[in-house]
């Protein structure tokens, strides 16, 4: 290959990479479960389900080439200290703002350690509200602090 064509291809590749869609997120969720969460005091079990506020965190999509630049967001978790018996789910509670579009993710989906599609759209979107839910809690949960990292991955779609 000549050097000039190589140079042109390299410039093209560089420009293509610079235009990758970005995702950012802010916020998170911390929940404390104590004796006030018993279903009906002593002798009863813990409430099984806990929900964050509707806007526990926000995600923003940026750097799209235009309103027809399609993308999807996958979600998974990476555990630091987590009990697999307790299911973590997330849903989208707002469309955010922006001239692009967004769909899906309005019902809770379980977050596992493998990527699953969360929602999709096209173009830039700001401040998409996310809500979390923890289910399966019981007194079998040993006193401890459990945490996991939720990873949102944006995938550029044709």
């Amino acid at each position: 290959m000549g050097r000039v064509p190589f140079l042109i291809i390299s410039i093209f590749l560089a420009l293509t990479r610079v235009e990758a869609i970005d995702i950012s997120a802010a916020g998170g969720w911390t929940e404390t479960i104590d004796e006030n969460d018993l279903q009906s005091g002593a002798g009863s079990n813990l409430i099984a389900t806990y929900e964050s506020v509707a806007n526990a965190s926000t995600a923003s999509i940026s750097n799209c080439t235009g309103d027809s630049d399609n993308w999807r967001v996958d979600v998974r978790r990476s555990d630091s200290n987590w009990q697999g018996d307790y299911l973590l789910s997330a849903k989208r509670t707002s469309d955010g703002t922006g001239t692009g579009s967004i769909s899906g993710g309005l019902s809770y989906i379980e977050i596992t350690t493998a990527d699953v599609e969360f929602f999709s759209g096209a173009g830039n979107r700001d401040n998409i509200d996310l809500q979390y839910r923890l289910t399966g809690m019981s007194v079998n949960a040993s006193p401890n602090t459990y945490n996991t990292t939720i990873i949102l991955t944006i995938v550029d779609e044709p």
Partner: protein
Amino acid sequence: MKKLIVGLAFLVVLLGLTALTMAANTAQQTVTYEVTAINEISVSGDPTNLVVNTATAGSEPTADTDATTTWAVTTNESSKKMTGSIDSNMPANTTLEVNLAAPTGGTGQGDVTLSTTAGDLVTGIATVAESGLTITYTLSATIAAGVVAQAQKTVTLTLTDS
């Protein structure tokens, strides 16, 4: 000129790779939940008055019992036990005993004489949520006690570490 072109090509490829590695296509958030130690007990109420007022001729007075109350426990810890005590000792020649039904996994200690020193009532309690566990009180007296005026005792039940 040749060196310039090669240099430019190298620079552009490097810029492309740099852009690739800096592309922020993931975002992270942390979810944390804390479960605190939960150790809750309750009782359903006070037992009825215990009165020793009969006897079979030739025998000590007949003890009186009450099993109208229950207790409940929730704990998410292991190696717990229930103890019991009263606020002041019983009059001479009278005895107040208590018997707590054990929750699943626990071991009841049967009829335990109450005193101002806490005694084990149920041992081996671990991660359980149960209610409706019967409490049985027994008041007994010998003839040596004579006539004893009505009195009250406060029974303190405690869930504690084994």
